């Protein structure tokens, strides 16, 4: 493969954010590529050091906002593309609903981790598509899961002896989303218990439960779809209603 294709592949495999600037029009260097990393370090050239410097400055700003854009620099048109690492979905509880949820998440290019203290729930046979299977109690697992702002967490265990420690451990992390399976009554009891254990109201309010969008389905597959749909709505900060009822932007 070309140097460009090799470097692109390597960077994608590393699953860290980077940008590629490509000269797409306006000068003799059309097709030239420049790789830019968040710290400003870079590889290759668009063929002109002054142009490179301007593009690197813009690319760092686009990287910070995870945006891609075509920009004009005098005569040169440069497409600056951000490649963000795939988001992660961590599922606590290798239950039935976790199986279709893993399928949906993989189709949507999430990295999927299943955590359950019960080894017979998290077998490769049940979860052939998962990226990672962890047999561990939730509160033991949370500290080394590297949960960050591109991590989505769903608790499906639906049993206070797993749910409460999981939520308590998660209350010190900052994922993009936490959803917890269970009825309104379950949620009320969980909240009461966690508040008594000193977990903040701000955190408890941020947990989505009962989990999922209101799609009406009751099968594990349908519930998994409602959860996945909610994760996508949260990802793009939308409410998740019918498009035909959304006012024109």
């Amino acid at each position, binding site marked *: 493969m070309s140097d460009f294709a090799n470097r692109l592949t390597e960077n994608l495999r590393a699953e860290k954010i980077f940008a590629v600037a490509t000269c797409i029009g306006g000068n003799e260097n059309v*097709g030239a590529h420049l790789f830019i990393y968040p710290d400003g370090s870079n590889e290759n050239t668009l063929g002109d050091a002054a142009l490179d410097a301007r593009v690197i400055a813009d690319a760092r700003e686009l990287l910070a906002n995870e945006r891609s*854009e075509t920009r004009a620099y005098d005569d040169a048109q440069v497409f600056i593309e951000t490649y963000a690492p795939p988001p992660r979905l961590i599922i606590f509880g290798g239950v039935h609903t976790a199986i279709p949820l893993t399928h949906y998440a993989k189709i949507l290019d999430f990295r999927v981790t299943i955590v359950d203290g019960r080894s017979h729930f998290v077998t490769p046979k049940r979860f052939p598509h998962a990226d990672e299977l962890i047999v561990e109690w939730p509160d033991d697992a949370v500290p080394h899961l590297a949960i960050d702002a591109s991590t989505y967490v769903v608790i499906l265990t639906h049993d206070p002896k797993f749910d409460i420690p999981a939520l308590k451990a998660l209350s010190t992390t900052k994922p993009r989303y936490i959803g917890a399976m269970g009825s309104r009554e379950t949620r009320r009891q969980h909240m009461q218990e966690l508040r008594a254990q000193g977990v903040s109201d701000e955190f408890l309010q941020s947990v989505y439960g009962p989990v999922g969008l209101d799609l009406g389905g009751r099968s594990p597959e349908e519930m998994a779809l409602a959860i996945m749909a909610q994760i996508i709505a949260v990802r793009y900060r939308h409410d998740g209603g019918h498009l035909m009822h959304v006012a024109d932007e």
Partner: protein
Amino acid sequence: MQEIISDVEQWRERGDQVALATVTWTSGSTPRAIGAKMAVNSRGEFVGSVSGGCVEGAVIDEARQVIKTGKPKLVNYGISDDMAWDVGLACGGSIRVFIEKL
């Protein structure tokens, strides 16, 4: 992108040449956003998409040309395009697609 890359690697391993098409600009309502990608090999097989199926056929033809000549190309598709009847976007938006040999 990960899925496209693994197909591209398989194609390259068996000796096919490959072009990559990327949406670099959009205007109005378009089926896919900036950064949408499609890879095409010298046999005309493809993976990924740059629209909702409206312009993929045209992109495959352009991509095979790019593979032959090695020269990258920026192509416009949209309702205002002369070829609107053949390869326009039904949604009324416009896109620019950059096609390069890998």
